[in-house]
């Protein structure tokens, strides 16, 4: 299945990835090949097969009691942010 330049641009926009004009044809080619490759699954009869939701049969994800277990570490965590002011993460203006 061949993807168009426009499709690649649209996937990149959904994934919030800025691609250069030279990257687009590269991904056009490789993503098309990957989709052809995974297209092998079309031939498999999966009617009446339940999709596998968890690698361990019969187990599902555990829930924990709804109680606060974390303490406040925001100063430590914000040391990894590029722009922080007064304990707040700074981003470009969103609302005019």
């Amino acid at each position, binding site marked *: 299945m061949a993807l168009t330049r426009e499709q690649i641009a649209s*996937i990149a*926009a959904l994934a919030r990835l800025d691609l250069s004009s030279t990257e687009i044809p590269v991904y056009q080619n*490789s993503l098309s090949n990957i989709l052809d*490759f995974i297209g092998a*699954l079309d031939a498999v009869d999966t009617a009446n097969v339940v999709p596998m939701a968890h*690698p361990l049969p019969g187990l599902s994800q555990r829930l924990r009691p709804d109680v606060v277990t974390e303490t406040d570490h925001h100063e430590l965590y914000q040391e990894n942010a*590029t722009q922080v002011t007064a304990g707040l993460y700074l*981003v470009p203006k969103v609302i005019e």
Partner: protein
Amino acid sequence: MSDLSRSTLTELAAGLRARRFSSVELVRACLERIDASQGTLNAFISVTRESALREAQAADAALAAGSGGPLTGVPIAHKDLFCTQGVRTSCGSRMLDNFVSPYDATVVARLKAAGAVMLGKTNMDEFAMGSSNETSYYGPVRNPWNTSLVPGGSSGGSAAAVAARLVPAATATDTGGSIRQPAALCGITGVKPTYGRVSRYGMVAFASSLDQGGVLAATAADAALMLREMAGFDPNDSTSVDVPVPDYVAALEQPLAGLKVGLLKEFFDKGLDRQNEQRVREALRVYESLGAVLSEVSLPHLPLSVPVYYVVAPAECSSNLARFDGVRFGHRCQNPRDLQDLYRRSRGEGFGAEVKRRIMTGTYVLSAGYYDAYYLKAQRARQLINADFIRAFQSVDVLIGPTTPTPAFAIGAKTADPVTMYLNDIYTIGANLAGLPAVSVPCGFVDELPVGLQIVGPHFSEARVLAAAHAFQRATDWHARVPRGYA
């Protein structure tokens, strides 16, 4: 001090306990080997020299006081996707080049509690996406057996470090073969435990239904010693399983006689290199001579593993990597025009080519109109593969076959075509899709390059799989071979 290149982790731990040498001496010797090899192998992203020597001094004090744990003073390295408090955790990516973890992963904390000394963080494919360690932002790792070849991936740095005996063992992770494939290509032992056996807390997520932490070491006995400390229930990981951890070391000596070994018919396919196949068949004869009973087993849906994986893994990756937004941590672009520009350029600059490819593949298969055709279809096919394994384990105890189709390949040989690279994991992905434990052990050489033998068992059968690997290593000496220049 005993010769580092000839000593296993088990022997080094015993030597430390007997005070035949000190942890400081051992750590210094390893650091020297790391320094001498770094320009050639590039196995490390960060070397934590000062903290390692501090920890070694503390270990020596504990050993002198008789209060050491099972790994006290033993040097190890962590794959650079395990979070380490106060130490950069880069995941092999420009995105996290500036990220200093504020906490320890559970695996890191447990090994620390057992007394292990961390010497540094090992190189890896970016966000563990790769089979050759060529996608790292920090440059490729080279195979110690032949430095023009790849070490395998994604845990290539950990594998090269252990193969060159820079450290006796290292942590690693396996999403589609990232422990077993580099173990095979570097001639060492790798164990990928059952899904949920080892906590994923603090292990940077790639594909959450497949990722599992494990060990790379010279021998199965060393891997058992490490895994015994790493495994176990962790309330901080909601997929961690509350099943008691057996003593993997004590279980190593269980006899092989009567072990029912299944030869996986689909593993001996046309893609398997003939000489690789010969080494694997010779290994099977060793098992027979030890009393194992061999029979052929077919898993008809197993050839679907790679296509299923390249839907499920990218889908989970695109979702997991959405957290890298350029705001809270990680790379941030210069002078963003608006919030969308901040997201798009931070991610476009921070991620490498293969990571972007997988994010886009995942985004596509999960997008409106394609979810049923790709993602749901793949999860149904995954169920068929899983059912094949469950059926096989009704008649055999373990499945044995090759770990990889070929020995190590040249750097650059498979980078042009992603699908060719993906097919490298054709024999390893099945265990991830079904959440099964598996081990790779060295079983011979082809043209002076190591070949890996893979042993897969039912859920939570790590003890049996490791014992089967250990019995093979008692009967052979492939695991004791060390590459020229590192012996």
